Every structure is written in structure tokens, then in C-alpha cells.
């Protein structure tokens, strides 16, 4: 069992990004893999299977954030001049932050990005723009559905990691939990802003959910 020195959890406002800690050493490993900011998210491992699993998780998450980014971009493209635009912009900025973080992780750990990125680019933008054309409620309904799917996905990842070894994956768990909380926040924001007032919300809900779930499935299967 690899044991990491448990870093101190810092109290922080959920809106702030994960603050860097001083680099820490795993007492059983001879080397520290550290990023420019001085801390590690993926635990270094020599087990090929585990590495493949972690890489796959990061690849899917990266693709998910990339897609979410494009969805908000699509929404802004249509609703960018309306009252709702500051809200969408704020949510989009948070997603950009998430994407930046995953870009970092992928680069540091030499994880291959998914080949389907151009597809998610177009599909995400289309979904965002399409839902926004239905009005502000449509955009919010899309947000609710997508964020719900993303939260589900993150939750299942958290469950997987907790089942394996909570201590080893402390940082990773913390990161995913933080992102999942952000996504839940977006979900609640969408609900607040009359997402449920739309009658075709149900269809739209299912469609966005389905769309997102299909995306996750494809990614999971293609990268296995």
C-alpha cells in the first residue's frame, strides 16, 4: 500500500481554485512528481493498469469539461446580448477554469487527449446554441440537464476512487469533489432561473441528459 503524507486540508471559499500546497513526499517513493505549481494530483504509480485507469478518467473528464465549455459558448453566442448573459458568462468562466486545470493535468501526466474532441466541439456548440434559441428558459433547462449528468459522472468517479483507496487518491478526490460542487451549483442556478417553467423541459431534459450520457459512454468505451 502506498501511503502519502496527508496534506492539510485548507478551508477555502468554493469559488477559489484549489490552492497550491507545498510539495509533499510519499515516503515510499523515491521521487516526487510535481507540477509547476508544486503539487501533484495524480499519484505516481508504476502499475500499468492503474495508470491506464487514471489516464482514462482524466481523458473523459477533460473531454467533459471541453464539451461543457463549448455548450456555454453556444449559449452565449445566441443569448450574449440579453439579461441572462452575465450569469451564463460567469458559469462559463468557471468551466474555463476547470478546463484549464484538466489541461494542466493532461500535460503533466502525458495523458493522451481524446480523439473525438472536434466532435465534442461541434456537438457542444450546437447543443448550447440550439437550446438557447428556445429562449432563456431553454438555455437554463439545458444547463440543468447537462450539469446533472456531469455531477452524476463525477459522483461515480468519486465512488470508484473511494472504493479503491481513498488515501492514495486524496488530491484527485478533492479535485473532483470541488468540480462536482461547482457543477451542482450551476445546476441549482439553472433551476433558480426558471428552468422548470418550460413545458418542453422534460423532453429537453432527457435529450440533454441523453446527449451527455452518450458522450460519456462513447468516451469510456473508446478509451478502454
Amino acid at each position, binding site marked *: 500500500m502506498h501511503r502519502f503524507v496527508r496534506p492539510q486540508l485548507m478551508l477555502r471559499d468554493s469559488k477559489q481554485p484549489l490552492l497550491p500546497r507545498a510539495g509533499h513526499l510519499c515516503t515510499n517513493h523515491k521521487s516526487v512528481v510535481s507540477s509547476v505549481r508544486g503539487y501533484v494530483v495524480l499519484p505516481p504509480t508504476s502499475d500499468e493498469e492503474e495508470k491506464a485507469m487514471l489516464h482514462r478518467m482524466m481523458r473523459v473528464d477533460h473531454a467533459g469539461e471541453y464539451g461543457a465549455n463549448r455548450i456555454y459558448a453556444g449559449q452565449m453566442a445566441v443569448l450574449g446580448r440579453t439579461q441572462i448573459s452575465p450569469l451564463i458568462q460567469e458559469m462559463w468562466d468557471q468551466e474555463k477554469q476547470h478546463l484549464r486545470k484538466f489541461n494542466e493535468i493532461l500535460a503533466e501526466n502525458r495523458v493522451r487527449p481524446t*480523439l473525438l474532441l472536434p466532435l465534442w466541439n461541434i456537438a457542444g456548440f450546437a447543443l448550447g446554441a440550439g437550446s438557447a434559441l428556445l429562449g432563456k428558459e431553454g438555455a437554463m433547462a439545458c444547463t440543468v440537464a447537462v450539469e446533472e449528468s456531469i455531477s452524476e459522472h463525477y459522483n461515480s468517479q468519486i465512488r470508484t476512487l473511494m472504493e479503491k483507496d481513498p488515501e492514495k487518491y486524496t488530491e484527485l478526490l478533492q479535485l473532483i469533489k470541488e468540480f462536482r460542487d461547482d457543477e451542482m451549483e450551476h445546476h441549482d442556478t439553472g433551476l433558480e432561473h426558471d428552468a422548470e417553467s418550460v413545458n418542453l423541459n422534460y423532453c429537453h431534459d432527457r435529450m440533454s441528459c441523453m446527449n451527455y450520457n452518450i458522450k460519456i459512454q462513447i468516451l469510456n468505451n473508446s478509451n478502454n
Partner: protein
Amino acid sequence: LCCGYWDMAALIRGLRAGRVLRGLGSVAVQTLSPQGSNVRRAFHRTILLQLVNDSKSDTSVPPPSYHEVHTAGESSSSSAHGESSEDAQPNTSFQDQSGEHGEDYETEEQLQARILTTALEFVPQHGWTVEAIAAGAETLGLSSASTGMFNNGAGDLVLHFVTQCNAQLAETLAEQNNQVQLGQAESKKTAEFMRDAVEMRLRMLIPYIDTWPQAMSILLLPHNIPGSLKHLSTMVDDIWYYAGDRSTDVNWYTRRAALTGIYNTTELVMVQDSSPDFEETWAFLDNRIKDVVNMANTAKEVQATGESVVQGLMGAAITLKNITGMNQRR
């Protein structure tokens, strides 16, 4: 996986002390109780009965007069040497050997690696074949029947060589990277870095260049393709990583595809190049890299032009909207 190899150590010890027969392990095999999936391995190991690579306990074990003991000149650690030479029970049960004797003992993979490395010396003579492996095994003092360990025969030899070359390349690139990070060397531009890395890697083929076409065709055999592709992609990824590529979008794929193309074509050119020190190959490499750089620049220009065009069109559209009064805030 490793704990299954420790019984080899006991085997070697017991058999060495018990007057090893050359080449045949039937007696020894019967005295061992096979352990499930290790039966095949145990059989293979008994073929290596005259594994003697211990300079230390040479004197204490009198070699039987009817077989030669070869001592190879390697410095790599081998199994069982350095152990106290008890002429103990010949059929030592190996249940008590579980994993305590760590680094002194060689795993099967290490042994295979050693054989293959030695076999490389015989490639110019025998080609990339099982004969080369047999010659290598014999140099190490093992029976030539130990080629039975290699299910893939010549494929194993070629893949081992490729792995070795790639590891060497990665090491050198990492070393250069360190130097740059420490400020002891200047970082190269991407094109130059690519060129040097590919040249370095291809130069490792020079000693075997005459037989390399044979090796290439072995790598193209259907059952070898997954392995060779994996090695190729790892090597290309390494080169790009040390060149500084940290892209996380589709560029990741286009860059690696480009480099794979460059590497493969240059390799083909090198194989039939007869100029002094492969000058033509390096010239070809230069041109290919220039091509890719040009393509990348062109792509960038096209994109910039495209963006300007789009902006121009948007401007025209907005002007139209203004004129017709459609452009109002909702």
C-alpha cells in the same frame, strides 16, 4: 508476478550444488514439484542448468569434468552468485525461498533480456533469426535450447532491440532536458530538436543497417504489429514531449502523425542509402522537417486569413442589420 520467479533461485542453488547436467533437465524436473502455472517456467529454467555466472563461488563448486563452464563477461547481476556455497541438499525445497533473496536473483525477464542483448552481436552474422539468439545464449554459457523461452523467436529479438534503442533515446533526451532546465545548455528550436532526435535514433540502426530490412519485415508481421506500433508511438510521444509539446487538443494527434511519417520515411531512405555516413538520409530528413514546418506555418496563415474573412463578413452583416434597423437590443 515477481514472487513466482523466486523458485528459480532455489532451483539454481540446488542444482548447482548437485552436479548439473548439461542441456538436459529431465532429472531435475522430476525432482521438482511443479507449482501450477510455473510448470512451464520451471521446465524452461531447467534448460539453463549450466547457468554459471558467478566469479565468486567458482572455486567452491567443482565443475563436473564432462561439461564446460563458460563465464561470460557481463557485469549484470545474475542469479544465485554470491550466495554462500553450501553443498547442501541437492533437491532443496523452494518453499522457503519466498522472496527473501531480492536483488541477487535474476528474473526470467532479466535473463531473457540478457540473452537477447548478447544475441545482438550475432545479428550481422546470422541475421535477425533464432540462430542469433542461440548463439547469444551459448556465449552466455547456456544451452542453445534456451531459445525455447522465446515464443516469438526473431520477433522477440527485434522488439528487444527496438525497446533498447527507445530507452536509450528517452534517456538521452531526458538528460538533455535536465541540462536545459539547469541552464547548462540552450534549448533548441523545435525543428532542430526534431532533427537531432530522429537522427540520434536512426544512428542506432547503423551497426545493423545491412540486416535492418529483414528486421523491418519481421516487425510488419501481423502478430508483431501491435508491439511495434506501441513502440513507435511511445518513441514519437517521447520525442514530442521532450521537444516541449504540451498540447491537449487535436494537435496532439497531428503532430505525432507528422513525426511518425517523417521517421518511417527517413528509415526507409536510410536502409537503401549508400552515401558516406548516410548524408543523403540526413538531407532527406532535413527536407521532410522543413516540409512539416512549412505546412504548419501555412495552416496558421490559412487560419488567420480565415478569421479575418469571417470578421469581415460579420462586419458586413452587422452593417446591414444596422441599416435595416434589425439590430436592436431585446
